[in-house]
């Protein structure tokens, strides 16, 4: 791991702001679902907040992101507005996709959030294609595909990494290795000790980092982003992490190792970052509390906005199938 890229105080605070937003938003989501106010398949990302926070501290609004069903953390870090998000997962007309996409297909091109896919592995070919476009544009924009450890065993992974390398595309393959693919452990499904090592099969740099460590994660993302912007091609980052709440909301977790889970939750990366910022004198307790309060208020407002937004008209069922002017 390179250590050239240590984030400065401002950047670390920026990361914390994102991570705190992500954590609070997940907590609120689970609360709202539990209360029955919203019904949807919800894939909690709790425990994985540092990864996109550190990533997005390195990205511009016009950089691109393709994420997955477990991707609300990625989107929020990239700048998805809370109201557009909440109205969407509530299936309302003010949702970013008018309620038609839902939690698994959130899209917000204004901030480069181009596709959210529910198909394991499919973020990679699409992000690779966006990177091809960015390369042709020549504007130095970067495309990021996020995906899970389980997704590294599907064909699309292989084809995408090979093509991206051959064409030297400005794409980052960001694997969030949370040690489980639904109910299957990493070891049971994946015939390699470190997914990062698979990069060698594509003449591509591959790095495994502790995704819960903001400094390490930031540096890895930074290096990959700079490579991509400089036209040096793709990077595979394997960010080690853990999901606290099972695969999907309601999951009883019986397949998970209790001790492992307990240890991971005790090492909750967001409060750890908070503590360090204060200990290192990079922020004060008041500052952070203020940020957190703002976040709480914003989320609260977004939830209220969402629940007050109307549902789409049933006629929306058959619009947006083809574009305007196209014969349906």
């Amino acid at each position, binding site marked *: 791991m390179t250590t050239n890229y240590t984030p400065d105080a401002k950047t670390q605070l920026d990361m914390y702001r994102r991570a705190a937003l992500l954590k609070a938003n997940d907590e609120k989501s689970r609360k709202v679902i539990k209360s029955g106010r919203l019904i949807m398949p919800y894939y909690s990302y709790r425990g994985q907040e540092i990864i996109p926070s550190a990533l997005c501290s390195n990205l511009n609004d016009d950089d691109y992101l393709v994420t997955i069903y477990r991707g609300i953390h990625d989107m929020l870090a990239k700048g998805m507005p809370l109201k557009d998000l909440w109205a969407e997962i509530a*299936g309302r007309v003010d949702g970013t996709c008018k309620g038609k996409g839902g939690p*698994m297909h959130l899209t917000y091109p204004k901030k480069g959030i181009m596709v959210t896919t529910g198909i394991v592995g499919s973020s990679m070919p699409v992000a690779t294609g966006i990177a091809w476009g960015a390369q042709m544009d020549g504007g130095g924009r970067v495309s990021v595909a996020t995906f899970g450890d*389980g997704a590294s065993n599907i064909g699309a992974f292989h084809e995408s990494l090979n093509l991206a390398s051959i064409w030297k595309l400005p794409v980052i393959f960001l694997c969030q290795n949370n040690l489980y693919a639904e109910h299957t452990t990493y070891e*049971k*499904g994946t015939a390699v000790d470190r997914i990062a090592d698979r990069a060698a099969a594509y003449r591509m740099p591959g790095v495994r980092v502790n995704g819960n460590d903001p400094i390490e994660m930031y540096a890895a993302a930074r290096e990959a982003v700079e490579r991509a912007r400089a036209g040096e091609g793709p990077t595979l980052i394997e960010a080690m992490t853990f999901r606290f709440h099972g695969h999907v909301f309601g999951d009883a977790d019986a397949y998970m190792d209790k001790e492992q889970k307990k240890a991971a939750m005790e090492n909750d990366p967001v409060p750890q970052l908070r503590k360090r910022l204060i200990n290192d004198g990079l922020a004060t307790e008041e500052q952070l509390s203020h940020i957190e309060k703002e976040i709480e208020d914003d989320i609260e407002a977004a939830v209220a906005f969402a629940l007050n937004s109307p*549902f789409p008209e*049933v006629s929306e*069922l*058959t619009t947006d199938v083809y574009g305007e002017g196209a014969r349906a």
Partner: protein
Amino acid sequence: MSDAVKEKEPQITILQAINAALADAMEEDEKVVVLGEDVADPEEGGVVGVTKGLSTRFGEKRVRSTPISEQAIIGAAIGASLVGYKPVAEIMLMNFTTVAMDMIVNHAAKLRFMSGGQTNVPIVIRTMTGTGFGSGGQHCDYLEAWFAHTAGMKVVAPSNTADAYGLMRAAIKDPDPVLYIENLPSYWAPGPVPEPGSTVPLGKARITKDGSDISIISYSRTLNEALGAVEAMNSQGVSAEIIDLRTVSPWDKETVIKSVAKTGRCLIVHEAVTQFGVGAEIAATVSKELFGSLKKPVERLGAPYAPVPFSKPLESAFAPDAKRIAEAAISLCK
């Protein structure tokens, strides 16, 4: 038999019926093996538990959880079947067949023909689908028309516990690849306990309810919606004959034609998109075979030409339900 007595009969769910069929088949024939994502018990016997208990009972050698690799899953099933096994492979959701279409269509379906009958591929591909849980555009498609169009494949889609059990037993015994479609929201629907060892022959429809005014042809979840429409239809004096296709391909032309010849009216209902869906083949065939003797044009009721939407009111309007079936049938009988 009075309803009171009926209620006392032991009941199981469709999910349990499938599980029992798998267990009984594995017990009877040691060549039956199961594979798919999360299917073994350390992984909880599948995301909704359809294969629960099987690996504990028959060992993880015969019930194997796989990586997320659908091509490899179907390839593994095909290969093992070529050397004498009878694999039941799970593709977790029907939309994920899209990453394994080559294995299913170019290989499983064709190897018997291309080898001139030297080899065959006795596999069952279990998959689940259906709207109702707010899963949106990539998790709920009914794609049976693709496979029905594929020479060499068989496609079944049970609507109740007896068929869930009997079709699974028949599919496993069948010498060719069978796609077995499960409906997610129906898993927990209870029904009579199927007789152990019973099979439901592939290619045979079932007249679920006799009637004289209109034949309603359906399968899977929408068959039960049609049954749910009976009261509304009765109240308007419409006597519907309801046919459960059970096997979508090869479909039971004879039973369908005979019924429509009697009623003179035909409504085909499925959850898949209407355009170029399974209903088109049935409508085309019925219209031709009964040309000149139908009282009304053959009607189809399916999903609109759109991906599955997330938002609840849209999702609810997407697939045909009892209300719309009743309306369509009543209007056809006016």
